């Protein structure tokens, strides 16, 4: 058991209705680094905006 999980379980009071998230995937160090990497995130910024624009073009005018 990781230290972080152990801490979380310590802080959940007995009988609590807190959801068990111990099966949720934890990001690896490399994923966390990629999420903050400047060159990679610049690319993601443009990809995300391109996707929004595609949705705008597809969905915003539905006239026949």
């Amino acid at each position, binding site marked *: 058991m990781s230290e972080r999980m152990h801490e*979380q379980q310590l802080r959940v009071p007995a009988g609590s209705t*807190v*959801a068990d998230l111990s099966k*949720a995937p934890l990001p690896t160090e490399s994923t966390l680094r990629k999420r903050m990497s400047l060159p990679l995130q610049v690319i993601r910024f443009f990809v995300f905006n391109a996707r929004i624009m595609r*949705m705008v073009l597809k969905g915003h005018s539905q006239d026949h």
Partner: protein
Amino acid sequence: MADVVVLGAGVSGHTAALHLSRLLPPGNTVTVVSPNSQWNWIPSNIWVGVGKMAKKQVVFPLAPVYRKRGIRFVQAKATAIRPRGDETSERPAVDVEYTAPDKARQTERIRYDYLVNATGPQLRFHATPGLGPDGGHTVSVCTADHAVEAAAALRDTIERLKAGQSQTLVVGMGHGTCTCEGAAFEYVFNVDHELREAGVRDRARLVFLTNEAELGDFGVDGMVFEERGFQTTSELWAGSLFRERDVQAILGAHVSRVEPGVVHYETLDGASHTLDFDFAMLLPPFGGVQLKAFDRDGADITEHLFAPSGFMKVDADYTPKPYDEWRAEDWPKTYQAVGYDNIWAVGIAFAPPHQISRPRKSANGTVIAPSPPRTGMPSGVMGKVAAMSIADRIKHGTSAPNHEASMAAMGAACVASVGEGLRTGSAAAMTMMPVVPDYQRFPTGRDLADTRGEVGLAGHWVKLMLHYLFLYKAKALPGWQLIPE
């Protein structure tokens, strides 16, 4: 020549008014009725609510913008609609009560040829005893002023943490039928970020209390994403973030009462629980603004125009049906009011045909299911579509076809900031296409190419860009109409 009246100057009403001012030939008039003198970019209230932005950065006065666009601004709240006029005239009218300090409480009957109801939500804190900042025991981020109060309460909590006390912070939904889960999701991770920055995260217990039966539902029945050759869900994706940031989640909860420092809630299994807190930001359920409707002879016809929730009935299929029979076609396309071809209801003001998330009740029969969200992007598009339909009717006659924008064919982006700072910020950015899943068209309900979730610094930049872009657009600065809704 026609007079167009827009009720509400939020995302949808303001968008409709600006486009009308652009599309209508001279001689026609546009009047906006709204109780607040300022426009508020509500999504950025989240940053105000953690003290990272000042109120003045998310609001601006409407009057100069309307003056520039030739729009009449009436600072008042609408109280009643008279769609067939009154005893003195057949021309339809709305009754308004002024809120501007110099005219407070004065009333006026404004005649219209076309009406757009964009009055947004009524914040129903009263649905849960003890909820909300006005006389209750919790804070909110629904308005800029609420967010300022929330930031002060959070600051006090951080001071207590710094003094070595342990604190429990609860963020989430204040009733089983709330909507806007994305906003609470965003706020909880911003609070997490603040606590980490202040170096006190280890003494804080942070709890997300939600009416969603599963994390990542967001009131849209969750999403399926395609990632690295696998289909995965927004539940796993959101769960990962909660686990990574050590935010505890209580799911399927209906808050029944709040006392000082204690939330009482019921879960889907019917059991009652309490949760002690030192700081709580709980959103209220939304209803429609309570407008009345009267016929020419003064008869009350409110229930013809409005659903019991207070939202206006439009061209949706309101036949009650089980979840399995919900279809994309149930959702409105034109937002024209039932029975009146010169009234539109857009944004949060229209009555949805049903929820989007699976309906659920607790073992005691309490409804615990998110109401359907109507986020910024669809609300803006509906406002524009109503403006285009009205402009066509004025220019080409009343047989001009309506423009359409169904939420079952329209996408939405939800960028939930999970931390602030140009180099240190982050956001959980989601796009979904369409908002209302269409299982007849897509096996997973949505187009996998456009339905995505990612976490990272880029999302924070997108959120910041949207903040500046939409404020620019709302101020009607040069080229505003080129910025999509």
